[in-house]
């Protein structure tokens, strides 16, 4: 059988032109497939890798409405809450590069990096930052992209909080989890609050807390919300994973569309493979008849066709994934992480996606060869060899 497989595989050498174009076509289709699957998996990274023990508390109506700062003290009193911190969405931009988007938050300095311990900051950077009211800590991807280094002064233009805001880059963090965006800028909430007056003063965007027992997350969430039920501003508390999932649910139509497109791509690939295999079988009808004549049975011939197709699938899969890996991980992925880190903090081809792509290529090729292989197995030896006589 192995010998037959190897002979069948060598049939791909018959027409280099056809084989090359088929492999190229399939490789491009697989590249598109891998990219789409990577979008889908990157989209889910936030939910999949969310901290199990972290809860988010926000305004019951919408996450863009603020909470009173005093709520943090109440949350900290809830049994089962280990640590709690808060943050505000700042939403500022670089005046000279208004299209350059990156997430920036005003955070509670003393607790933020304890609750978000996947943001790794050196003790020196953290100490420098704590001592500097205008200090900011930025993700290494953002720092690299903007050319910022420790000691630089940066001015951001506020959108939610108008005006020019000056920051000193005191430290650089690096995420230890795929779900954490490496392109954020965080600074002291006090710096923001001290500059605010009226209704904006002493307000926070949300509370993040860590619990001692993840199995009690639901119970603790309900307890937090119960505290604020009788207040003017009610809250909704949920696990970080649930929060991310609910955020992503708003894009479900888009995700479904991506799924559909990836299936269409596979359909196109199936047609390309099917056409090539059918052409090969038609051209070799006489050869199959000769094989039958010298004693090979119909299943041998079917095996021959399927083995050749499977080889085509293996080659296409390996080439496609071989192109997709560096293309996505070194080019597209880096660009997306730098420019859309908030949405896609980790845009890389997952090994499972690569394996899936190769497996699909082989399976599709084998499937595409089913009908041609049945036809080849049924070939009438005498008809195929017929000569006048």
């Amino acid at each position, binding site marked *: 059988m192995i*010998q*037959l497989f190897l*002979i069948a595989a*060598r*049939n791909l*050498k*018959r027409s280099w032109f056809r084989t090359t174009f088929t492999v190229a076509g399939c490789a491009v289709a697989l590249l598109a497939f891998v990219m789409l699957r990577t979008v889908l998996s990157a989209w889910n990274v936030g939910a999949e890798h969310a901290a199990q023990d972290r809860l988010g508390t926000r305004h019951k109506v919408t996450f863009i409405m603020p909470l009173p700062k005093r709520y943090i003290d109440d949350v900290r009193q809830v049994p089962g809450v280990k640590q709690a911190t808060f943050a505000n969405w700042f939403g500022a931009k670089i005046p000279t590069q208004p299209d350059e988007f990156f997430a920036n938050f005003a955070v509670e300095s003393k607790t933020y990096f304890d609750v978000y311990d996947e943001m790794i900051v050196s003790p020196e950077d953290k100490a420098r930052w704590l001592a500097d009211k205008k200090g900011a800590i930025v993700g290494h991807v953002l720092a690299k992209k903007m050319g910022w280094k420790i000691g630089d002064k940066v001015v951001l233009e506020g959108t939610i909080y108008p005006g020019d805001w000056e920051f000193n880059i005191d430290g650089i963090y690096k995420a230890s989890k795929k779900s954490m965006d490496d392109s954020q800028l965080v600074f002291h909430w006090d710096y923001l609050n001290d500059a605010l007056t009226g209704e904006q003063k002493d307000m926070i965007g949300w509370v993040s807390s860590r619990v001692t027992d993840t199995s009690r997350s639901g119970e603790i969430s309900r307890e937090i919300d119960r505290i604020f039920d009788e207040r003017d501003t009610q809250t909704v508390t949920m696990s970080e994973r649930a929060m991310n999932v609910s955020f992503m649910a708003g894009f479900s139509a888009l995700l479904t569309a991506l799924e559909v497109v990836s299936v269409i791509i596979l359909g196109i690939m199936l047609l390309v493979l099917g056409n090539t295999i059918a052409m090969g079988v038609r051209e070799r009808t*006489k*050869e199959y008849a*000769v*094989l*039958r*004549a*010298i*004693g*090979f*049975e*119909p299943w041998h011939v079917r095996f021959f066709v399927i083995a050749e197709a499977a080889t085509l699938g293996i080659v296409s899969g390996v080439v496609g994934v071989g192109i997709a890996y560096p293309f996505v991980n070194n080019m597209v992925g880096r660009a997306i992480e730098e420019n859309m880190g908030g949405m896609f903090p980790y845009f890389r081809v997952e090994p499972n996606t690569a394996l899936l792509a190769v497996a699909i290529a082989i399976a599709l090729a084998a499937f595409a060869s089913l009908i041609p292989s049945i036809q080849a197995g049924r070939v009438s*030896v*005498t008809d195929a*060899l*017929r*000569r*006048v*006589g």
Partner: protein
Amino acid sequence: MSTESTNERTSKPNAEAKAMQSDVPEQYRKNATPERGKAIIELSGVTKTFFRGKEPLTVLDGLSLSIEEGGFEALMGPSGSGKSTLLNLIAGLDRPTSGKAIIAGNDIGAMSDGELAKFRARHIGFIFQSYNLMPVLTARENVELPLLLTKLSSTERRKRAETALRVTGLENRMDHYPRQLSGGQEQRVAIARAIVHDPTILVCDEPTGDLDRKSADDILELLTKLNVDFKKTILMVTHDPAAADRATITRHLNKGRLE
């Protein structure tokens, strides 16, 4: 009633052929001592009818034939006379519509498709007009093909393929691809493929049809050698009188009957 013309056999065994024969493994020669006089092909009242739509077309019409083991017979006749159909029946590629076809002791009409395939693998060696070699395989690999159906080790397969190629005089072309060979050499590879599994009968369908005279003569010489030195029973369909001259018996077929 059949009319047989008997030619005086020009057997030209030479020293080289003898030497090659001694190189052939024992298993290879197990059929090399045919029982003279014993019929290896026996057809009795064989009819073959095809249908064109609903229209029956009788290609072989009550044909009876007996060919002795170790014989070298040529089958001639005009186009459409049923030569290839008869060859296909004898080779186990087709079954008679009626009548008996006993080939090497096997009743072709009573065998299943799978049994026929095994019968062909064991007893029949095919030589086609257009060689029909696989272009992606070397001469040796092409010759090894029928042995893939056996349980022989790859070393043994290779050894036997090389022996068959030596018998056909292609020991220096074993690693050549068909495109690197002349028509005559390709046909020699096809002959090596036909004999590598030591079949009982060699079935040749216009083996010299695509060759020039010189190459055709070489191939006929080789077939003669296989018949004389290796005692292979050969049945050859041909339009070429010079090819038919090499056979011990020439039969003429016309409208599905032997003349």
